[in-house]
């Protein structure tokens, strides 16, 4: 009976099924089959037998990674870059949105928004190319500026002390404006009566920011914070990879770039899969923990 009813709905909804089929098929093939292929991390990859044919090795490759001399460096670099990006990069769009929201003149606000969104559309290669030419200590404009204020010859891209700040600041430059859109949207939904009544109560603009705007952003802030914690170990592989050079490698080699080098460049498929899986698991644990904490503390959570 029930099956018959189910078949009935499938028959009735056959057009809907047809319309979702292409998307369903793509997601299944390109997202779920690789998940099945994760077992490669526990097997010895065999070129002739494909993804799942190799001999079972258990946790061998995980152990190999944890015991490798690079392990502590990779973990430290990945965490440092991610933490720096979150600690400095996360509040930046919130502050920018609060600032932009204070602009009353429409044309001026529009001009500011157009400008700050723009860098988001520059490709990561062009961005790193820009960093290379602008930051060059001999010929770049930033190089000249640093000389002018007495900082001398520092190659910001080739020193292990300046790599992370350069990475984080350029990241803010590129995405801060774009990331502020979501906060601006949240601010635009604040009831204007709140501002009017606060004005009658004698609140100045600092106080409206502090007591109206900021609390209005809180739920959005929490959700985005949880999401960014979930991605703590998977920070921009592309940009780090492109910014890497022999001189900054001690601080710029992160798990994702190492997976690429082990897997795609040196064909150590099983070892690289194990590292990748290790990375995903830590991400997942972070996401889950942050979500649980947030549900307790603020009643806002993703799931």
């Amino acid at each position: 009976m029930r099956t018959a009813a189910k078949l009935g709905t499938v028959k009735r909804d056959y057009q809907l099924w047809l319309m979702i089929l292409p998307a369903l098929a793509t997601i299944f093939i390109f997202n779920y089959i690789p998940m099945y292929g994760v077992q490669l991390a526990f097997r010895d990859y065999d070129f002739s037998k494909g993804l799942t044919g190799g001999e079972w090795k258990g946790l061998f490759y995980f152990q190999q990674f944890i015991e490798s001399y690079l392990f502590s460096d990779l973990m430290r670099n990945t965490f440092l870059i991610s933490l720096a990006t979150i600690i400095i990069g996360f509040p930046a769009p919130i502050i920018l949105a609060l600032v932009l929201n204070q602009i009353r003149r429409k044309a001026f606000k529009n001009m500011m928004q157009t400008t700050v969104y723009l860098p988001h559309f520059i490709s990561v290669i062009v961005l790193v190319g820009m960093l290379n030419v602008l930051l060059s200590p001999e010929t770049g404009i930033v190089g000249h500026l640093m000389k002018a204020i007495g900082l001398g010859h520092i190659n910001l891209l080739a020193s292990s002390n300046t790599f992370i700040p350069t990475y984080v600041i350029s990241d803010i430059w590129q995405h801060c404006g774009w990331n502020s859109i979501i906060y601006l949207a949240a601010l635009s939904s604040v009831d204007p009566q709140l501002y009017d009544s606060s004005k009658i109560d004698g609140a100045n603009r600092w106080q409206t920011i502090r007591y109206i705007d900021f609390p209005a952003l809180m739920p959005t802030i929490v959700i985005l914070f949880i999401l960014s914690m979930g991605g703590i170990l998977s920070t921009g592989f592309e940009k780090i990879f492109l910014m890497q050079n022999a001189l900054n490698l001690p601080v710029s080699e992160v798990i994702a770039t190492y997976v690429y080098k082990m897997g795609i460049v040196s064909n150590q498929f099983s070892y690289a899969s194990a590292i990748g899986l290790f990375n995903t698991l830590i991400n997942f644990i972070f996401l889950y923990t942050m979500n649980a904490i947030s549900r307790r503390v603020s009643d806002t959570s993703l799931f």
Partner: protein
Amino acid sequence: MERIRPCLGGGEILFRIVLVIVCAVIFLTVAYPLYFIIIASVSDSTLVSTGKVLLFPKGTSFFGYGEIFKDERIWTGYRNTLFYTSVGTLVNLLFTLPAAYVLSRKEFKARKYIMFAFVFTMFFNGGLIPTYLLMKDLHLTNTPWVFIVPFSVNVFYLIIARTFFESTLPSELYEAAAMDGCSHFVYFVKVALPLSKALISVIGLYYLVGHWNDFFTALIYIRDNELKPLQIILRDILLSNQVFASGAGTGGDSGGYAQKYADQIKYGVIIVSTLPILVLYPFLQKYFEKGVMIGSIKG
């Protein structure tokens, strides 16, 4: 948004001064590097590299652009990227929009499960290596399809589209159409899509920029020089310093080539490769906020 005109107390004046200063600093930090690239690309490279070009181009020279337009790699890259971007975006829309429509229909019983299956992939994936091996097994590596087929659906944009359909198409509309014998296909093409132009522009733009700026796919899956997209060519020129061998094939020969022009070419290449997006940008900017707002509605 015009509110009661505030009387300008001392605090308000101070606030406005600080606001203007902060905005000016933000504006200059973002805009100046972009402006500098433009003026540097048409200035005498010696003057640029000694820090003499600051506000206006000096010793105007279009040598860099001349070299860029002579280089075949740039044109091949441009052609490939245009193809991957246009076909890719088209396929994206053809796959994403109908699926989003289906997921927005309450009478579609499987929607909860399918939605979960889609969203799950945002948090967990097989990782680089299993995906790479799958592409190899499917013989997608080193073909143009690798840019188009595997990425035809982006779950995040799918959610944006679904939320849009849910919130803009009242269910009475479909009921009325169904009464007149309208099927889902016809309703989707004749009613839902024409009402969703804003959404299509936003999602289309996101997909388009994604394809245009994508280099990772080519880095991993493409070996053939003829198939390389613009971004990979840019990497060779901007980052690997493969200088131009005056018009000839796959660069690397730096003899006969004046190093002092290398930077001018780099500035020019940045402009040439980013130009299409910058030209589209003003027309599409008004949709950005709409898109993000649609997407940020809790779903």
